[in-house]
């Protein structure tokens, strides 16, 4: 993938720098309760398989998978949800929503003993936080398997050597140019600091939009992730990030805002999700141009998490194993342009497609330090608002 391959055995157990350090969290009370509950459930005579009192989904109470809305949901239904139902016979349906970004609501639901859905696709900061709060079910690694090699950082582990979450898809970020506003495609992250693009750019508004990581990586005066290990280092990077302000016209929350702004020609270029950018480029080739920046794509991912209160853990694990199969990952990659969670060698996809979703093998992607955004969240939020946001 990045030319730095390791053996699959060590990957399954190793933690790379980009896999966050996990704090130990006690689940003992929840474990006891869920074990007792599971025991009671197992001995209850349901009358028929799949009643609401057992942990098997039924037609009336199917396995529920929350995915992002719009085209994303349509493709997931076509390539993952429906085939899973047909091949396994397990009732499953997808729901569109804000997924694991709504941790406060999920926390309330789990504490109330409710199950919002059985599976969420979570960002790293979301699955780490959720794990700290005891919201997610953790897996024995032997319960999750694939006939392909799963990229290790997509399978974050807890301190107890259990799986906190299971890789869903890679989400890289690239540079998307609106050719109706800017004639030549923007090809470098450093364009964000170029005053010829004054008030042309759109970037995400939150401090964890990884602009800090990009800045630390692309400028020689910084040492990448090493610089971001201290507050003084982060502050010096933020002082550099400040310089992008004149070039930003939109600080968006959801990607649809940026897309809509480009549609109106209010935005000339965006730091954008590579998968969505590729779809836009495909749909309107004359208007959009998506490039892998000279310095590399920004690398991120989503992983499936199961709320602790879910009664359908086994079925959910079966879903996870299905989603990790190479042919399923291939279908999703081909239709959604998200990066696969399997190593390149496990996948039968074309080189062009792999390069488009992942970037060339010769170029390392920029890997963010997710743990930093959690450990220093309050301080970073203040600094971001003070120094970067207008």
């Amino acid at each position, binding site marked *: 993938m990045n030319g730095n391959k390791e053996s699959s055995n060590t990957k399954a157990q190793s933690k790379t720098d980009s896999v966050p350090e996990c704090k130990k969290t006690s689940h003992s009370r929840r474990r006891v309760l869920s074990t007792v509950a599971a025991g009671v459930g197992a001995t209850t005579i349901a009358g028929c398989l799949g009643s609401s009192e057992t942990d098997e989904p039924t037609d009336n109470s199917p396995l529920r998978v929350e995915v992002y809305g719009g085209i994303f949901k349509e493709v997931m239904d076509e390539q993952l949800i429906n085939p899973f139902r047909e091949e396994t016979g397990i009732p499953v349906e997808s729901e569109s929503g804000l997924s694991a970004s709504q941790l406060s609501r999920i926390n309330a639901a789990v504490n109330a003993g409710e199950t919002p859905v059985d599976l969420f696709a979570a960002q790293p900061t979301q699955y780490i936080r959720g794990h700290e709060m005891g919201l997610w079910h953790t897996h024995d690694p032997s319960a999750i398997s694939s006939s392909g090699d799963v990229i290790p950082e997509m399978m974050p582990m807890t301190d107890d050597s259990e799986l906190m979450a299971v890789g869903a898809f890679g989400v890289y970020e690239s540079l998307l140019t609106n050719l109706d506003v800017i004639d030549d495609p923007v090809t470098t992250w450093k364009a964000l600091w170029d005053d010829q693009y004054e008030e042309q750019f759109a970037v995400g508004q939150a401090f964890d939009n990884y602009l800090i990581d990009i800045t630390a990586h692309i400028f020689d005066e910084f040492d990448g992730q090493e610089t971001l290990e201290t507050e003084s280092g982060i502050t010096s990077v933020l002082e550099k990030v400040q310089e992008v302000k004149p070039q930003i016209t939109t600080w968006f929350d959801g990607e649809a805002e940026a897309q*809509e702004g480009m549609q109106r020609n209010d935005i000339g270029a965006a730091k954008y999700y590579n998968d969505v950018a590729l779809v836009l480029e495909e749909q309107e080739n004359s208007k959009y141009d998506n490039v892998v920046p000279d310095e590399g794509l920004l690398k991120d991912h989503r992983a499936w998490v199961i709320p602790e209160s879910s009664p359908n853990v086994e079925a959910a694990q079966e879903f996870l194993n299905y989603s990790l199969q190479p042919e399923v990952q291939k279908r999703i990659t081909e239709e959604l342009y998200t990066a696969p969670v399997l190593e390149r060698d496990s996948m039968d996809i074309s080189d062009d497609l792999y390069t488009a979703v992942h970037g060339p093998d010769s170029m390392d992607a920029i890997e963010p330090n997710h743990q930093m955004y959690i450990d220093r969240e309050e301080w970073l939020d203040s600094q971001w608002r003070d120094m970067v946001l207008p």
Partner: protein
Amino acid sequence: MASDDISSQRTQLQRILNETKSIRKRIKRHTKKIIVGYPISILVLFAVVPAGILFVTSFFPKPSGEYYSIGFTTTHYVRILEGQALEYITTTLSLAVMTTLMCLLIGFPMAYGLSRFCSPKYKRNYLIVIIATMWLTVIIRTYAIQILYATDGMFNRLLVWLGFVPEAIFESTGLFTVLTGMVYGYLPFALLTMYSSINKIEPSIEEASLNLGANRLQTIWRVIIPQAIQGIAVAGGLVFILSSGSYVIPRLLGDPSQWTVPILITQQISNQLNVPYAAALAIVFVFVIDGLFVVSFWAYRRLGRVSVVGIESLSTKFVRVGDSILGYVPNSFTSRVPMLLRAYLFVLLVLFALPLAVVISVSFSPGSVMQFPPEGFSLQWYEEILTAALWRNALFDSLSIAVIAAVISTSIGASLAYSIDRFELEYKSQLMALGVTPLVIPPVIAGVAYMSYFLQIDIWGTKYGVAIAHGVVFSPFALVLVKKGLDELDDHLEEAASSLGASQVQLTRTVTVPLLSSALFSGALFAFVLSLNEYIIAYFISGFGFNTVPIEIFSSLRYNYSPEIAAISVIYIMITTIVVVVVDRRFDLSLWN
């Protein structure tokens, strides 16, 4: 035997009648307690207690990367005082003040012109269009404003084409656009409130002023404004409160320099789960807003009251100066004021209808993303909504919650207003303060407070939980409107009914309530409309079992601006317009009068 039976039946009947009289006497004795006690208990249970929980939560510690825990710390308040949050408070108040002034300045001539110079039919149709814009979900209305003000948008293209400007001057985000969005959103509230006040002023008083030599502008200044001052003050207060708690408009139309306290609070909860800090922000913000109201109220009383006859003015010198200045305005202009007002009303109607027109046209887009102007015509999105269980359920849930919320809010507001106005109570101002308390708490923090509280009392994730929350939060509208209606009620009518032998109950039922029907219905209507459009509180307490239409829309808008959203908004408007018009005609509420 027969006579014994008859006698015994008579005795039984007499006993029943006596018992009934006794029950009725007991009810009558306790009526006052019931009428006063009902709103107080609901507000204490569902406004004071959650606010208390919020206050306590603001002192809980919240380590980085973890959820908050029970404990005590003042770090959140220290963080607020360190400066950054104060900027957000200043921005919020500035936006609210500017919005209020603009709504009053724009809305007053509208209200006056509509009340005085338009036919009943024109008045009704005009108000229907204005009210319909209120029912346009704020999220989709904001999108329409972005479309209109975009670099390539209609307004810029028109101005460039007319040669007024060499290039685009409007932007789809920024201070001007935020203010535009706020005025679009809250002017109808100001207009309806001021219109209701001006409409009650006898035209003969105005005629008398004109006959005595004052021109139209002097008449407005010396006669209309003083008599409508209470309505104007209420309109200003309403707009200020609503705009200071606004989340969606500054979030979508503003850049970060226009972000308000509600946005900061929401981001703290959503992004970092920093509920204690968000709670501390809310407490500080509420104190600031309350402080402003106390100062304003003191200033209002200090400057003086105005009487029905309009002799005493807010400040005699100030009024006289204004009067003199207006006296110099040529008659050729003042005589044209009615015509100018009609033209002004027409222009504003077009401006108000434009976002509505954008949304309606976009709802017929054939493509998968919203486009204006649409590149074709298709009914697919309406078909999609009417066949999709997701939208049908959301629509049904939103409407049913809104109806229940309207009933709850009107019952709380009306009973409290009646108690304050009619009963001899020692603590009237405290009751009034209790009554408006839900309004001064930003919806986002009300949502978080209710989330914690409803989990404890086991109504989180239920529709009636959302309805109760909405009913309580929007009850101040009914309180203010009904109180105003009671203040403006002609006492002589009730005195006449009483002297003709009507009991208190008969008087209330046959005289007071019918005279108040417009205020009652307006209060219910405000609550209904606000509940339909309300996103943040519903988001925090609805759980995952159901979604209201605003939640579905906001959730969809994050990933895709689909014309489906425009279509559901149009359906929303049609349903609510039909309901209001039908109810107005069926019950002869004369809402437009």
